[in-house]
């Protein structure tokens, strides 16, 4: 834990350092084409790899009994991330540890895929009011690029080829014709489980299917390093995001199929700052996301206890789960100080949609006021600023250990 003095020193450095040296990831400017860059490109040798910590998502608990049991005591993961950009595109490579290769198979109901996702904020002009890390929030959309490892999937594609989705035994074909049928069917499958979504908070996530997103993603397993390596390249600017800035917020998530990972069963990072080297600006963002504690965590813990937060939130992993509000056991891992403070002062600014409102009907995380979501949490703006910062600092310390 850093002391206040150290914290102040680092923030002072952040604001004075030219070139954003404290950014979590530095994107190197290149002139080469990045539109279809993969892990195999030699360009990555020039880039600088920086650590990004990924924490188990524990804000909400999914309803899969088996998966919950095997994910009960997850540690954090340390991924290494590098980035490149040119005038059109920005590309990321993420390497993360995973001891097992898990492919979602076409003949199993209980196999799950390893995979990763990269999330971009549609707006980040106020670095203390970024979209909610869990796939955005109302009025603050995000774009999520997802790549999973799957065997061929024959997704209904609306192309009118339903007849090719039937079992071969149900056709009236024989011999050569049946072989041709099999071939046609095989051509419909795709093992490239790459998806892009636009989202304003989980539940609202909607796949972009009209081709208006411009992205390319690849993934491979590195046997020697016992981990995956994934790349994602996307347009710097499209109708969803504009990443032409000195620094941008980016978030990463990985799934472990071995642990039945999918959807919320994942590890995710906080918004991390990515400096686009050579572009000016973005220092505020870099400083806001640098992760340093904004107050005295010990005093914050006392304040959290005094204000009865545990009445609605599970705060430390040792506390009893509480359906009244989001669990905070890893909140320090995947939240920024700005988000935590905003949520403390203006709980309705970024609503966590939480469970289906029918799943735990006695515990609504928000009410609807003329269609607008209003958090059921009371605001703590009346606390003095030191106490507010101490509470945020304490929340920043709530996270699993890296292993």
């Amino acid at each position: 834990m850093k002391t206040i003095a150290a914290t102040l020193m680092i923030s002072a450095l952040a604001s004075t350092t030219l070139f954003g040296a404290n950014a979590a990831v530095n994107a190197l400017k290149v002139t080469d084409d990045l539109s279809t860059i993969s892990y195999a490109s030699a360009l990555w040798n020039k880039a600088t790899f920086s650590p990004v910590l990924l924490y188990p998502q524990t804000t909400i608990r999914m309803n899969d009994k088996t998966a919950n049991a095997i994910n009960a005591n997850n540690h954090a993961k340390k991924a290494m991330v590098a980035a490149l950009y040119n005038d059109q595109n920005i590309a990321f490579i993420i390497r993360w540890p995973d001891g097992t290769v898990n492919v979602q198979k076409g003949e199993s109901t209980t196999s799950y895929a390893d995979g990763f996702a990269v999330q971009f904020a549609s707006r980040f002009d106020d670095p203390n009011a970024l979209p909610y890390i869990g796939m955005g929030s109302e009025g603050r959309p995000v774009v999520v690029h997802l790549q999973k490892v799957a065997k061929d999937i024959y997704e209904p594609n609306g192309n009118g080829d339903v007849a090719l989705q039937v079992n071969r035994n149900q056709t009236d074909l024989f011999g050569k014709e049946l072989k041709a049928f099999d071939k046609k069917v095989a051509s419909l499958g795709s093992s490239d489980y790459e998806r892009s979504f636009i989202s304003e908070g989980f539940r609202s996530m909607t796949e972009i299917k009209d081709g208006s997103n411009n992205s390319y993603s690849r993934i491979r397993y590195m046997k020697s390093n016992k981990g995956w390596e994934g790349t994602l390249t996307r347009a710097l600017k499209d109708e969803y995001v504009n990443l032409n800035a000195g620094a941008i917020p980016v978030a990463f998530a990985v799934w472990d199929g071995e642990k039945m990972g999918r959807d919320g069963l994942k590890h995710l990072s906080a918004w991390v700052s990515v400096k686009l080297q050579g572009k000016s600006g973005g220092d505020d963002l870099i400083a806001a996301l640098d992760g340093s504690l904004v107050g005295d965590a010990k005093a914050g813990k006392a304040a959290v206890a005094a204000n009865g937060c545990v009445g609605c939130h599970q705060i430390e992993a040792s506390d009893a789960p509480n359906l009244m509000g989001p669990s905070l056991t890893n909140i320090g891992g995947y939240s920024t100080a700005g988000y935590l403070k905003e949520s403390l002062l203006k709980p309705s600014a970024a609503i966590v949609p939480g469970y289906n409102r029918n799943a735990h009907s006695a515990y609504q995380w928000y009410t609807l006021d003329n269609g607008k979501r209003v958090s059921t949490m009371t605001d703590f703006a009346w606390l003095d600023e030191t106490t507010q910062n101490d509470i945020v600092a304490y929340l920043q310390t709530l996270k699993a250990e890296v292993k």
Partner: protein
Amino acid sequence: MSKRQLAMVMDLNKCIGCQTCTVACKTQWTNRNGREYMYWNNVETYPGTGYPKNWMDLGGGFDAAGDLQPGVIPNLEADYGVPWDYNYDALAGGASFEPNVEPTWGPNWDEDEGAGVFPKDNYFFYLPRICNHCTNPGCLSACPRDAIFKREEDGVVLVDLDRCQGYRYCIAGCPYKKIYFNPKISKSEKCILCFPRVEQGLPPACAQQCVGRIRFVGFLDDEESQVYKLVHKYKVALGLRSDYGTQPNVYYVPPTESPVKFDAEGKIIEGSDRIPVEELEKLFGPEVHGAIKTLKDEMKKRKETGESELMDLLIAYQHSDMFRLDNTYYQQVAKDKGLNPLAPVDTRYIAGKYTKTGHTINFTHGAGLTAGGHH
């Protein structure tokens, strides 16, 4: 809750476990790869492991406080049973007849086993199951993508395949395990209560093909409907495992007509009943006692007086005595939504609440079709 609710009643006294419903469903809807192992309709032997194996122990549904309970997602090989096929093509070449996978488990692996000791008190009955199209669906509540919805017009619960990302939490959330994962398309699929048929005047395939005529279909708010009479008027049709808290909309007339037991000497124990009422209470709740009493009383009344609306209803003389569908209503729904209203392909069962004019088309008399009144 939806505006109206389509419901089904199954009379377990009449189910002979022939699986015609299963076959009707499979031939109608297994039109896509990845559905081979799924039985949107299955008929299992009770007591027994059921399909998927031990589904009653796999969690899901709600507790008394209304909280969704975690559940377990069944495994294809161990719990559903992997669909296998035979090497027909190789037989011509002299190969021996072999399955392509070693079958270790499948639906109805324990068919007709039941419980008790033969010949003293052994018993079993058949339990046909489809999606219950619950008023408070566990699957819908479990979906983190809001990909499952309950149709406003008739309460049919459907998966929006466009939104579904194959997370499978719905399977864990459904206490009946009546929602399935299609691994070929990586999406969840389930019984759709044959809504494309119902909208056009045809009952669900399982109900129409049922040789025992055990399945009644209609709207629960339609007081003339058979389902209304069985569920609300006579209260002889009860939800399966209502204690799961999902408010199922498939109702069962409990099996009341089981043989008597034998004593140690092989003599009939008068007044005994092989199916333990505790088992029925477990499946259908404490209301089962009232339902059994009503059924027995009405049966007696019918024997003595020859009159009983309930018995006539359960005999189900004709299909039109079993189904009351409502094309007029669906036409209005389509109009309200700005869609093209579908003309009925079969009007024999259209006699719903909003159907002011009868429009039976008689397919049997004379050479051509004749339209006539109904009821």
